[in-house]
């Protein structure tokens, strides 16, 4: 594989996966990353590993369930702050 492209792509994999509004990849860059990952085993594996990590971290959020009683208390407090009949 072309090492320059590899380097170029590997530096954009996070942004590619995140799609964060502060660091959007141009659609041309998105296509270039995808074309490269389709033909480069190393970057494809890298991408897959990053995806697995994202999923595992997302799972963690789902497992860290907020205490419903805590949320209820906070919601009640917010309602009390603004007074009844507002929302």
């Amino acid at each position, binding site marked *: 594989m072309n090492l320059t492209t590899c380097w170029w792509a590997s530096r954009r994999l996070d942004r590619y996966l*995140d799609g964060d509004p*502060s660091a959007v990849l141009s659609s041309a860059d998105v296509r270039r990353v995808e074309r490269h990952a389709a033909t480069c085993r190393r970057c494809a594996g890298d991408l897959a590993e990053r995806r697995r*990590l*994202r*999923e595992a971290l997302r799972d963690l959020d789902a497992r860290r369930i907020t205490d419903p009683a805590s949320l209820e208390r*906070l919601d009640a407090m917010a309602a009390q702050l603004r007074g009844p009949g507002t929302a």
Partner: protein
Amino acid sequence: MSVEEMNPGDQGKGRGAPPGYPVVDALDARDDLDLGAARSVSETGDVRFAQWVEPEIEVLLRVAHSLTGSWADAEDVVQDTLIRAYRAIDGFDGRHPRAWLLTILRRTHLNSLRRTRPDLVEDASLERRRPAFGRASVVSPEDVLDERLLDGDIEVALQALDPRFRTVVLLVDVNGLTYAEAAELLDVPVGTVMSRLSRGRTRLRKSLRSRRPRSRRAARDRPGATTEGAGHRPGHDQEEKR
């Protein structure tokens, strides 16, 4: 540093607004947060509070958990945050409520640290910190993460991270904040969030790789549910060199 400055994709909304959130600065004093004092908010303020603040309560709670490591502490911080937000609502223009709330949350958290762990926090902690890796001279929220929540490989790996990297990973990858929101919360530039995130993720991948060298699907399993028996998990050193 306002969200607009950090987020070039969002121009148009932010013209002419002063950077930062001066309204929040007025709240810095360590006042007692009694509800009575908040009663001067207008009726419009009440409506805005319901509209802008209340939908964010759960996110605030999760983020506060990432900062404090405990649900009880998180609830306390969010309570104080809500009171401060309520008092400030009349001066808030409604742009980026989440970022605004995260700023209040950060200050509230620092204030509560100052109360409970004065040894860790100095006045300088509310000043803008320079985004130098590992060289902050004062303690920031991410240094005080809890050590209790350990279970599963990924939590172990997270716990082993430098707190600066860990907090950003928690905020962005676990809590789902945008780069700009995490930057606002931590009071660092977006570029710093991105580089910490990248380093944190790279270290996590490395350490998870060394824990489960050959199971390609392992990372999707429940943490802890490895295919290797606990008795013959290979040593990390030899796994590192693959």
